[in-house]
């Protein structure tokens, strides 16, 4: 193959035009004849037994067509088959404020909303568990009765290499505690779905999900309807970031109500409900011990994490492993021990948010490396560059590394910002910081154990020069539809706009596991490439014959099959396709992808961490801290990202910038926090995501390593670039004011407090933060009682 004709170029996404003209159909834009409107009744209690749910008054309300409760769908479900602890609607217990309890379908949304207030739920309140420490200590209160120790959901202990010898050989050992606050995805589109109950008992669900295939499986289980009778269509997601990758109450409720009424039923969550649906970043407390020689070579790392999982499992088992799995892929670590614990608390369930489980430990590790560099008098950028894990190697925890561009990422951000000249040399209040990181290009294993492909695609050629690609991927704004069209076009020698994409439809498209773990470009890209190349071979054979040229000389691009020694000898794509169809019959081919064996270890827990390729990134942050107001201004974020090959550089830059933006929000102030079980900020006024005026100048640098196994060399770009941003900012704040922020977010209050008290560090000092987690609950109860007393008086 010679140069690429489509890939590597800045081209508009094929689905952009629909977005830009209002023609894109998101789930909430779907309106069907006779459609009913659904609403969920949500728990007002953080932890309570459900004594009784009485829906009779709601059912009798004019305009209400049907009501369902937990008793209608008691089957356990959850995204991970090994830890299914949820029901579609709460059955005998509620475990967080906002947990769905009942669902109403009515002729219009106002009526559905009114009907909610007519449902009587009798609760027997239980004491809520609200912190990691409480969850570990309390044997007498269980969020889930089957927790063996306290409220522990999962405990992981892994050890690799000779840890004792590693620490014994260290000239310098650091012990540091960190806390990463929880936060949420806040996509601009709230969750929405429409289910249509058909006369033959089938149901079709249009929903903004990242995982149509996994949802399909859970619908079968909960509804008791064979998958053959259920069709899931993933609508374009108006942002997802991991927050639409669990099966949700509204999806089950819509399907059940549609099946019962034989009518379409729509559910669209309001903004407050999105904060309860959550599945966002886990709050994680961490302890990190790292030993180094006097020149900084790492001799051993012991990492411990405690994750506040909220009320249900979600992806928590994977999240727990992910906090430990990827610390080894960036720098040489000869001995490594990881202990992880995830607990249940009475808060909305945490799950995967961009960077899934790796963001928190990466923050801790990169902040600690900055301290180590400081302790040893090393330039933190040059230091990192000196201890890189080599390309084409295996880590101590048996992860296979192929292409590895972290070194170039560090060089590029260093050059762009003049890092080493500025570091420790800026005026007071100004600072610069650096961090590196890595991420997977897709999880090496599927969520349920099977030997089938992770991604399948079919490509067919029609008689007018058009091509259609079918693939189960979900378009969540990351550009997967455009990726499918572009790779198909490249392989077949047509233009992306000639390719019609059918994605995310369980009835039409082969299975793709979904848009999570940054797997789609690598896995679906390889699947569609394989399918398209099968057809290209048929077309090339016919073209060679008709042009009288050896097949090795046939190339295709720009809708032509041509002799590369004499490009004037060519056939049009339409003509060659017609000749090929006459020769071979209908032009359709399937391709698939499954990660190779042997990319990870064989120990228990080895399933999380392996990936066919890792992306790498580095970030430099430049900040200004106002010592009067405590306001931290991030002046500039320069992020370099090794994406293998940039299949569309404009889209890759968009992912780098968007990731940097989201990481910036997490460090500057976003927090999903609670007061006595009540969400403190369930609105976009209170949960502040950065506006255009808040967002720093973002610069994206693409680093290419052309991965041999990636589709045309590509790796992931959607998640990794978030990870280095947070520690880079924390390290820059230290450079500016000499205070280590070992907890997020870094708010003006914390900065002012640290400066006033002349602290050199802000963060936890142990597992017990010293704060009484129930104090706010007591205050809340007291004020509620006082208010009620006043009202009754």
């Amino acid at each position, binding site marked *: 193959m010679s140069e690429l004709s489509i890939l590597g170029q*800045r081209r*508009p*996404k094929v*689905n*952009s*035009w*629909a*977005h*830009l*003209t*209002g*023609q*894109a*159909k*998101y789930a*909430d*834009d779907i*309106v069907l004849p006779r459609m009913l409107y659904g609403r969920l009744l949500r728990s007002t209690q953080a932890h309570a037994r459900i004594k009784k749910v009485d829906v009779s008054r709601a059912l009798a309300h004019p305009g209400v067509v049907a009501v369902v409760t937990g008793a209608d769908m008691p089957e356990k479900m959850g995204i991970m088959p090994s830890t299914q602890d949820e029901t579609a609607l709460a059955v005998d217990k509620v475990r967080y404020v906002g947990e769905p309890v009942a669902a109403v379908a009515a002729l219009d949304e*106002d009526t559905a909303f009114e009907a909610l207030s007519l449902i009587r739920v009798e609760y027997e309140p239980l004491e809520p568990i609200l912190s990691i420490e409480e969850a570990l200590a309390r044997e007498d209160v269980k969020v889930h009765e089957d927790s063996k120790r306290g409220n522990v959901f999962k405990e992981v202990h892994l050890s690799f290499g000779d840890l004792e010898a590693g620490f014994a050989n260290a000239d310098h050992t650091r012990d540091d505690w960190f806390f990463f606050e929880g936060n949420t*995805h*806040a*996509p*601009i*589109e*709230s969750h929405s779905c429409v289910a249509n109950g058909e006369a033959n008992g089938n149901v079709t669900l249009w929903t903004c999900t990242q995982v149509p295939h996994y949802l399909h499986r859970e619908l079968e289980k909960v509804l008791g309807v064979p998958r053959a009778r259920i069709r899931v269509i993933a609508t*374009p*997601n*108006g*942002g*997802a*970031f991991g927050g639409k990758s669990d099966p949700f109450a509204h999806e089950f409720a819509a399907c059940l109500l549609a099946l019962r009424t034989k009518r379409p039923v729509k559910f669209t969550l*309001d*903004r407050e409900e999105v904060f309860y649906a959550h599945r966002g970043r886990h709050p994680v407390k961490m302890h990190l011990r790292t030993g180094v020689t006097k020149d900084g070579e790492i001799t051993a790392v012991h990492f411990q994490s405690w994750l506040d999982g909220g009320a249900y499992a979600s992806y928590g088992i994977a999240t727990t492993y992910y906090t430990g799995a990827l610390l080894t892929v960036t720098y040489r670590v000869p001995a490594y021990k990881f202990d992880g614990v995830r607990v249940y608390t009475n808060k909305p369930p945490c799950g995967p948010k961009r960077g899934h489980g790796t963001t928190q430990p990466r923050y801790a590790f990169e902040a600690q490396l900055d301290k180590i560099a400081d302790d040893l008098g090393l330039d933190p950028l040059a230091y990192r560059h000196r201890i890189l894990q080599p390309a084409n190697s295996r880590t101590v925890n048996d992860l296979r590394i192929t292409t590895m561009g972290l070194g170039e990422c560090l060089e590029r951000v260093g050059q762009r910002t003049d890092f080493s000249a500025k570091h420790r040399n800026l005026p007071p209040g100004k600072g610069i910081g650096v961090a590196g990181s890595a991420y997977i290009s897709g999880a090496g294993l599927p969520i349920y154990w099977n030997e089938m492909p992770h991604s399948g695609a079919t490509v067919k050629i029609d008689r007018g020069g058009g091509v259609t690609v079918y693939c189960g991927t979900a378009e*969540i*704004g*990351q*550009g997967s539809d455009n990726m499918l069209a572009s790779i198909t076009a490249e392989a077949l020698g047509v233009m992306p706009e000639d390719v019609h994409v059918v994605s995310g439809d369980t009835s039409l498209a082969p299975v793709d596991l979904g848009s999570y773990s940054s797997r789609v470009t690598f896995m679906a890209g390889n699947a569609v490439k394989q399918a398209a190349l099968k057809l290209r071979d048929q077309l090339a054979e016919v073209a060679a014959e008709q042009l009288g040229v050896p097949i090795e000389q046939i190339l295709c691009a720009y809708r032509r099959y041509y002799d590369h020694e004499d490009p004037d000898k060519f056939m049009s794509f339409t003509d060659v396709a017609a000749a090929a169809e006459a020769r071979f019959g209908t032009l359709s081919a399937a391709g698939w992808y499954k990660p190779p064996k042997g990319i990870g270890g064989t120990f228990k827990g080895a399933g999380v961490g392996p990936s066919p390729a890792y992306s790498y990134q580095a970030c430099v942050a430049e900040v200004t801290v106002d010592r009067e107001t405590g306001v931290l201004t991030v002046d500039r974020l320069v992020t370099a990202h090794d994406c293998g090959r940039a299949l*569309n550089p*404009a*889209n890759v*830059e*968009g992912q780098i*910038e*968007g990731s*940097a*933006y*989201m990481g910036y929000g997490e460090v500057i102030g976003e927090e999903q926090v609670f007061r006595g079980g009540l969400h403190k900020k369930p*609105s*976009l*006024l209170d949960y502040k*995501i950065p*506006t*255009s*005026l808040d*967002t720093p*100048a*973002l610069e*994206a640098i693409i680093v290419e390593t052309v991965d041999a196994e990636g589709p045309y060399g590509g790796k992931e770009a959607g998640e990794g670039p978030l990870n280095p941003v947070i520690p880079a900012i924390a390290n820059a704040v230290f450079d500016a004011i000499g205070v280590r922020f070992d907890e997020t977010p870094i708010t003006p209050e914390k900065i002012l407090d640290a400066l006033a008290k002349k602290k050199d560090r802000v963060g936890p000092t142990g597992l017990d933060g010293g704060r009484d987690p129930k104090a706010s609950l007591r205050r809340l109860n007291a004020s509620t009682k006082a208010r009620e007393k006043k009202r009754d008086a």
Partner: protein
Amino acid sequence: MTKELLSLRVNGEPHTVAAEPHHTLLEVLREELQLTGTKHGCELGECGACTVLVDGVPILSCLTLPAQLGANAEITTVEGLANGGQLHPLQTAFAQEGAAQCGYCTPGMLMAAKALLDTNPRPSRAEIAHAISGNLCRCTGYTAIYEAVEKAAKAR
């Protein structure tokens, strides 16, 4: 509630619809006129996804009742941005720069940007940032949006 008849001019076309008087302009546009290009993100005036133009001025349709508008108010939504078959320079520039990722904030963002360019044909980056500061985008980090607005300004 009883529906009442309501006359509106949207994208240059007159419409008469029956709508609940307490329903917002956003609801009327989406549900009565099927102009679903205008998005709802919060329905509380927090996110800007529902931005439309009324007589050229960007407003939040989720906080506006149709009855508040004058009889001759000219409402422009994303569906009315293109001039017949001719895309608006902002639409072309957004596509070229990758300024729409998930596309959900995009209709509101386009309307805010159009209002800016109509009154300030050569805005500085700070002026663009100010003009779209009421429109939250969760995907792009705004950089590509600035570049697209600047490109559209040059193209006009």
